[in-house]
């Protein structure tokens, strides 16, 4: 039984082979919508991604699949066979949203454009997420996570301030080892979908959303774009960063953020370091001077940070009101008192009894909270249930579909 969310009562059909589309549909499910994930007969690609409890590959226990597909029911259909395709079209004719996420050529080839579906369901909102969009000179380009992060400007901008590259000609632009572009496009796809839902309440009809992963990346870089638009593009190795210290440095057990851009913070920081003689040098007399002479200052600060653990420095500094923090590994973040007390992680248990966690919901709505209404579906788990419940298919009709599929 579904709990009440802001989108309870709305129906979503998802057909995608990318992180972005899956995450977009999951977010609608997190808010209470009834999401039906249509998978090909051999299952979604991320069932084969891992990680797996116990390290043993199992399409029902791939971590990325579990994360992307909670709050959904699972239906398997071969939408390229005519009989299965008509079942798919029947589902879309009942739905408020169709979320698709493929390369644009696949969207066209599979006939997933709204103009082909709207006659049967004028209220349908089609949210289409593709690497470069459905229109425009590069729309046929193939792309994935790395391509979108690169073509959207994020790779060039990374590392970002106060970090910088060593040699800008030799050190390559960088992505994070995550599906960042997929999540960015997924969240923005959900935003566009709910905005279209609000428009539908006014105008009565649905629409087609054409979201580009490249643009979903570029859209989260207003600060970088502002540099190019107002002055000049920010170099990957700026000569000077405004005011220092605003950096992270190695310490005994990892890295620590040393941030003392205010004069009071700087004086307190120097007091913690036992007021070394160099602290009085003219070249370190202001934040701007310290930025200009950072190459000289960094090794001096390093002597101090390397004599302490990150936690020691953070404690000492925070007692004096200086915003210093140890850098956390993923494990330290998961185990931190803060994350634990806020109850952010979701507890999971695999069939073998292995317990693990997955990230939870970063927005907390007081009245319509996002919730874990159901775990990710097993392959084909709800095919019969959904075809009966949404479409009133008889057991014989459903069997006939299966026969075609087999």
């Amino acid at each position, binding site marked *: 039984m579904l709990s009440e*969310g*802001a989108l309870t009562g709305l129906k979503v059909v998802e057909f995608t082979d990318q992180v972005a589309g899956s995450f977009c549909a999951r977010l609608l499910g997190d*808010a209470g919508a009834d999401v039906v994930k249509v998978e090909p007969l051999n299952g979604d690609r991320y069932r084969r991604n891992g990680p797996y409890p116990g390290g043993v590959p199992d399409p029902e226990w791939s*971590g990325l699949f579990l994360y992307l597909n909670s709050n959904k029911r699972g239906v398997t259909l071969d939408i390229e066979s005519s009989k299965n395709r008509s079942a798919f079209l029947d589902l879309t004719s009942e739905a408020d949203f169709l979320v698709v996420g493929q390369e644009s050529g696949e969207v066209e080839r599979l006939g997933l454009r709204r103009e082909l579906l709207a006659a049967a369901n004028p209220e349908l909102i089609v949210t289409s997420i593709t690497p470069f969009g459905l229109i*425009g000179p590069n729309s046929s380009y193939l792309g*994935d996570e*790395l*391509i979108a992060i*690169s*073509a*959207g400007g994020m*790779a*060039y901008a*990374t*590392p*970002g301030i*106060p970090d910088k590259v060593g040699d800008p*000609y030799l*050190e390559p632009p*960088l*992505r*994070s*080892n995550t599906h*960042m572009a997929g999540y*960015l496009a997924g969240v*923005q796809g959900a*935003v*566009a979908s709910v*905005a279209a839902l*609000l*428009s539908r309440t006014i105008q009565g009809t649905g629409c087609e*959303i*054409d*979201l580009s992963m490249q*643009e*979903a990346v570029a*859209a989260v870089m207003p*600060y*970088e774009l502002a*540099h*190019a638009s*107002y*002055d*000049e*593009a920010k170099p990957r190795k700026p000569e000077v960063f405004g005011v220092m210290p*605003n950096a*992270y440095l190695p310490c005994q057990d990892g890295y620590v953020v040393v941030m003392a851009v205010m004069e009071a913070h700087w004086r307190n920081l120097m007091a913690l370091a036992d007021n070394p003689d160099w602290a009085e040098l003219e070249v370190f007399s202001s934040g701007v001077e310290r930025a200009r002479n950072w190459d000289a200052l960094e090794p001096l600060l390093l002597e101090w940070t390397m004599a302490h653990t990150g936690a020691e420095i953070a404690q000492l500094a*925070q007692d004096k009101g200086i*915003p210093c923090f140890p850098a956390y*590994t*993923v494990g330290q973040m*998961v185990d931190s*008192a*803060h*994350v634990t007390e806020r109850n*952010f992680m979701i507890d999971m248990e695999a069939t073998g009894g292995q317990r693990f966690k*997955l*990230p939870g919901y*970063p927005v907390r709505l007081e*009245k319509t909270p996002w919730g874990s209404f159901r775990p990710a579906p097993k392959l084909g788990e709800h095919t019969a249930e959904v075809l009966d419940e949404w479409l009133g298919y008889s057991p014989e009709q459903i069997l006939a579909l299966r026969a075609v599929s087999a």
Partner: protein
Amino acid sequence: MSTLPLKGIRIADFGQIIAVPYTAQMLAWLGAEVVLIETEQRLTTRIWPPFAEAEPGVNRSGGFNLVNTSKMSCTLDLKDPEGVDLAKQIIAVSDVVMENYSSGTMDRMGLGYDDVRPLRPDVVYLSLGAFGRTGPMKDLVGFHSVINLFSGLASVTGHKGSHPRIMGGLFPDAFSGCYCILAMLEALYHRANTGEGQHIEVAMTEVLATLLPEAVMEYTLDGTEPERVGNRHQYKVPHNVFRCQGQEKWVAISVESDAQFQALAQVAGIPGWADDHRFANAEARLKHQDELEPLIQEWTMGLQVEDVVQILQLSGVPAGPVLDSAQVLADPHMINRGFVQSPNHREVGQRPMGAFSWNVDGDRPGVPMTAPLLGEHNRKVVQELLQVPDDEFERLLANGVIS
């Protein structure tokens, strides 16, 4: 062109720096009337670079003007009780309040959720913090680098064997903004259906942690911490950026299938690659990527970025340019699609910027309008909206309550 869905919704925007201003800007693009409440004594992005042609001025900052388009600006002294009273009057006629001050600041000013609910029982009130509004770290100030480093994101960003890196673009602010606007639209939909407002709380560190399901799962299963792998992928090879002709020119290439690799070998014109046992299949390529990557770079180094992209895309191999921010704004594809917009600003003229990342039925929704000058709408907000009489307005202005 689809109807702008937030016509008639008014927003009191107490946003600081990027995250909440960026969220409120998107709501303005969707048709909401956004009143940005600024305090002249504590300006942030307005007095920070980049400035138009590097010339400082409160109306010349790109950092401000690119996250505050389509809004009104009202300058109130929130340290003055009369300024707070005006802020309350604005809230009383608004549907939404949004803020990202440090925890407790809005409460101390008498503008917290519990304070304003009696003024506007159905208000949707969003609070965003680096660490959120609860938990042992709620009072800590955290800028984007701290959020990168606390959340674990930096620990999966960096070259192999090297140190953690900070994502570009003040990433935590804008990514948090995307989640914030989603939550806000849901809350407004709920309010339209039920008449009920609510509070929304968001922690930026948690927003970033949503990127890390695999790492969180592996750590909680058996204590394994992720390694930094540069641009490499768990099974796609090659999967990296490669130097091209010119300075700081790079192309991204991502090969998933053996067929794509054969096509790459073909167009790169290196006979034997495709049959080389080191590269014959994904498993072999994974093992020998240290040898493969320099060979690919030898090929790309002799070519322009756009030529490599063109050649590979025509052969069915995913490839893309590594664009810097100036190239993003000049990209013919994104300009053609409507992503790049250039609202005209009274003081600095037309400046390109990014709009929404999607089209609706072929058109870009909610094209950005100009960003407001500091205090540009004081009269409009205080006199027209709040109906404060002329002489009272002049008195508030003379006393510095409105600046």
